[in-house]
Structure formats: structure tokens, C-alpha cells
């Protein structure tokens, strides 16, 4: 049993100069065999392991990660959490996650700094206005909080927005989900890792998967840089590298991996206390607790695994940001980076069994996976443990690309994919 984090443990450890904190997770060598192995130690993978151990009583499991945990897209996203999706299937999936977010810090005994500061989506033309109003109604029918704001209400909610009607893409209104917000991305990975480790999950870092061993239509184990690991169930949560792992198992996925960029500014005093996203001009911005503006750009349109994106994508995003927030014109950008996102043709995720028995994929989150981390882990754990999807992720099966029953949120999601 790990010692609980609290104000008292903080004070107690202050006396020993914070040098005697217990390790949050062990660093074990892999065992010869596990009941299940999760490939990918990001937020989704660690959450999957956590819920497998907690809700499905599978303790003899491992998470293998080629780098360090949370070093991939978990640490590269812009930390936005919302559930205001148009279609019922998506609304169910993302709101399931949002409900878990609301009590996650307490459950994990780890402060994930979940902040329900609201997410506002802007409309810039008549079609945007109609689409956003329609989405607001759809959200409310699904029990998801959403309100439509007119120009004055947008300005009141976020006073630094330029609502002049003379700009190239004037603000005509927006929607607001007040339960939405942000969380500290690293803490999510660390909190789930600590919780999973406490229940006996082996978190094995610097362990890259090199091959998947199949016997006919059944998996037998994985080849890794730390040797062969025997297992009957493999859950792959490898984000941008999902296709690479699928190739090892002789499968093809409907994915394309592309660079997605983000950047942060120098830290400044609090200036924007919410998250504002704009679909039409593809710019979104929030402010971190450190004071940096966190800005998300778009994806490049070519396949790449290089974790670098094109400069013109960043330039386009900053042009849009400056038109909407002239006050930021003299801000300096501190850091810029890219992550590799795996995008499905319908821009919705896959949480599914595959034609290979014992092989499960959780992928295709594209540009918006962070917000779903707890729900994705919970539903993927259910799918792996029962060899059947939960009703909330049944629509996100891999077979939808054959049946044609796509979950098409391309234009309807808050940001164009």
C-alpha cells in the first residue's frame, strides 16, 4: 500500500528537504508471462492497465513503453477536455470520460489539476452559427451542458476577444460548455501509473515492441527489446505508431499518422481564464497555470513520424490568433513541438477487437485524444477483459469501415480535423 499524498505528507517531507518521497512506481524487469500486456505507456495505456486491475481484477499485467511514460502525445497535447460532440456515439464516449475527470484527482489520490474553466467555440460565418446552434441542441438532448452565446455574451465571457465585425473572419457568436476545461497532462500519466503500480501492474519503460507472435488467428506474445513476453491478450495503445504495431501482426488499419503542432508563449499574468477554440480559422488558446499561453495548431496533410511539422502551419495559426486577440501581438513564443497523431478517415477513434484473437486496438484518436483518457482506458479495459465492447464503445469498432456505419464528426467537432 502506498502512502497517501496529503497536506500532512507534504509538510512531513518538507522536513527532510523532499529527498525521501516514496517512488511513485517501480521500474521492474519484465516477467516471462502476463495475463495481458498493454503496448504504450501514455495516458490511455496506463488508464487501461489501471481499470483492468481495479475493475476487472486482472493484476498480472504489464504496460510496455518504448520511451518513458507520458513522453509521447500525453505530454505534447494542449490539455483541453470537453464533451460537446454532435453525434450520440461520440457524446456518450466523451461525456463518460468527462464524468470520470470530475472526480479523478480524488480517485487517484493524485492532483491532475482538472480545471473546469469552460470551453468556448466560436462561430465566424452563418453556417458556423447554424452548426453550433444545432450542436448545442444535440448536446442538451444528450444531457451535456451547452449554451449558445451571442456576440455580446462572447465578449463578456472572454473580454480580450476582438469582436469587431471588420476583421477577415468576424466573431458572430459561440457555444460554451462550462463543465469543460483543462487538466495537467503529465499528472494524468503519473497518477494512473502510480495507481496501477500500487495494484501490482508492471510498468516497463525503455522496452520497445519489435514483433507480435501469432499462432494462426491467436496471439501468443510480444517480442521486445527486453526479450519475449508470453501473453494471451495484447492491448495496443500506440497512438501515431499504431499502424507500425498492426503491421507486425499482419493487420492493416484505416489510419494515417501526421504531425500535429502546439506551442507555448513566455509566461504572463492571468489574461485568459477559459479555453477558446475556433473551428473556422483553426486556432485555439488557453493559459497554463504557469502563465504560458498554450496554442494548438493544425495537422500537416502528409504522413510523417518525424515529430516535426511545417512552419507555415504555425504561421497560419498565429495569424488567426493575432486577429482574434490583438493584445497578444507582442508576445514571444517560448517553445514549439510536434506530436504524431493517428487519424481515421472519419476522425473518430477505434476501441475494438480485431480479427486476431487476443489482439485489441485503441487508436485513431487523431487530434483529440487527451480529453478521453479516463473514459478510453475504462472502456478499453472492459473490451479486453470481456472480449466484448462496452455499449459506449460498440460504435467505435474497426468493422465500421467495412459496414459503412462511420461516426463522422469531421466538420461537427469543435475543431476541423
Amino acid at each position, binding site marked *: 500500500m502506498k502512502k497517501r499524498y496529503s497536506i500532512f505528507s507534504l509538510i512531513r517531507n518538507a522536513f527532510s528537504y523532499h529527498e525521501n518521497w516514496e517512488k511513485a512506481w517501480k521500474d521492474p524487469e519484465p516477467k516471462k508471462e502476463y495475463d495481458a500486456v498493454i503496448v504504450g505507456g501514455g495516458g490511455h495505456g496506463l488508464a487501461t492497465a489501471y481499470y483492468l486491475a481495479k475493475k476487472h481484477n486482472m493484476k498480472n499485467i504489464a504496460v510496455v513503453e518504448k520511451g518513458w511514460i507520458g513522453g509521447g502525445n500525453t505530454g505534447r497535447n494542449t490539455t483541453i477536455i470537453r464533451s460537446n460532440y454532435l453525434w450520440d456515439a461520440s457524446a456518450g464516449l466523451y461525456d463518460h470520460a468527462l464524468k470520470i475527470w470530475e472526480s479523478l484527482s480524488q480517485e487517484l489520490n493524485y492532483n491532475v489539476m482538472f480545471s473546469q474553466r469552460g470551453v468556448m467555440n466560436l462561430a465566424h460565418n452563418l453556417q458556423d452559427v447554424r452548426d453550433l446552434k444545432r450542436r448545442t441542441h444535440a448536446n442538451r438532448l444528450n444531457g451535456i451542458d451547452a449554451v449558445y452565446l451571442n456576440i455580446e455574451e462572447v465578449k463578456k465571457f472572454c473580454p480580450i476577444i476582438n469582436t469587431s465585425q471588420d476583421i477577415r473572419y468576424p466573431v458572430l457568436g459561440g457555444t460554451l460548455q462550462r463543465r469543460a476545461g483543462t487538466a495537467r497532462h503529465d499528472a494524468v500519466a503519473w497518477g494512473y501509473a502510480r495507481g496501477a503500480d500500487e495494484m501490482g501492474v508492471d510498468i516497463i519503460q525503455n522496452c520497445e515492441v519489435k514483433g507480435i507472435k501469432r499462432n494462426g488467428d491467436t496471439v501468443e506474445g510480444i517480442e521486445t527489446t527486453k526479450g519475449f513476453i508470453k501473453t494471451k491478450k495484447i492491448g495496443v495503445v500506440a497512438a501515431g*505508431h499504431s*499502424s*507500425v504495431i498492426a*503491421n507486425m501482426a499482419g493487420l*492493416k*488499419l*484505416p*489510419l*494515417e*499518422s501526421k504531425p500535429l503542432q502546439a506551442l507555448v508563449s513566455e509566461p504572463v499574468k492571468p489574461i485568459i481564464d477559459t479555453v477558446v477554440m475556433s473551428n473556422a480559422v483553426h486556432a485555439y488558446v488557453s493559459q497554463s497555470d504557469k502563465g504560458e499561453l498554450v496554442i494548438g495548431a493544425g495537422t*500537416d*496533410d*502528409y*504522413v*510523417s*513520424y*518525424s515529430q*516535426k511539422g*511545417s*512552419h*507555415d502551419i504555425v504561421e497560419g495559426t498565429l495569424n488567426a490568433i493575432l486577429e482574434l486577440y490583438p493584445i497578444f501581438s507582442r508576445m514571444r513564443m517560448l517553445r514549439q513541438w510536434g506530436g504524431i497523431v*493517428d487519424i481515421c*478517415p472519419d476522425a473518430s477513434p477505434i476501441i475494438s477487437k480485431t480479427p486476431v484473437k487476443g489482439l485489441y486496438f485503441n487508436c485513431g484518436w487523431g487530434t483529440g485524444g487527451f480529453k478521453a483518457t479516463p473514459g478510453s482506458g475504462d472502456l478499453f479495459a472492459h473490451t479486453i477483459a470481456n472480449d466484448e465492447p462496452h455499449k459506449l464503445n460498440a460504435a467505435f469498432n474497426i468493422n465500421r*469501415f*467495412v*459496414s*459503412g456505419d462511420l461516426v463522422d464528426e469531421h466538420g461537427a467537432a469543435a475543431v476541423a480535423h
Partner: protein
Amino acid sequence: MFLINCPFCGEREQSEFKAGGEAHIVRPKQPTELSDDEWAEYLFMRKNIKGIQFERWNHAHGCRKWFNMVRDTSNDQIKAVYKMGEKPPVK
């Protein structure tokens, strides 16, 4: 950002081009005779290779012609460009 040597116009910035995805996927001659699996394979399934990939590009803000490219997707290095209908110059 990288430079692309358009086979028709010469070297230009990548931002002038539009990526068209995996190359050499032949449209089935009789789509009506395909099973749902075969149609899904043609329409959606992609190799999405990390490494040497054959792909289509369009010089969207230039000559607007389509061509093929061989590119290493792990570091964005372009190995070759060649015209539509030509055999790939490298394996």
C-alpha cells in the same frame, strides 16, 4: 517544412503542395463486384509506413499537376520524385 522538386516546375517550398496519400492504389475495375471487405480495403486501409513510403502529391499552388514521390516518413527525406504512370526509380 521541406523543399519538393516538382518534376514539372523544379524545386519549390512544400507549402505549395498538397499531399495525396499512399500511391499505387489502383481503383478496382468493377467496384460493383467487390465484397464489402475488398471495398473497405481499397477505400480506407492504408500501410501508413514508418520509413520509405510511395505517395502522391499535387502541386496545388503551382502547375496543379499530380506526381509521385518516394519519401522516408521517419525523417521527411525525399528519395525521388517521378511522374504519374512511371515506374518508381527506387525500391
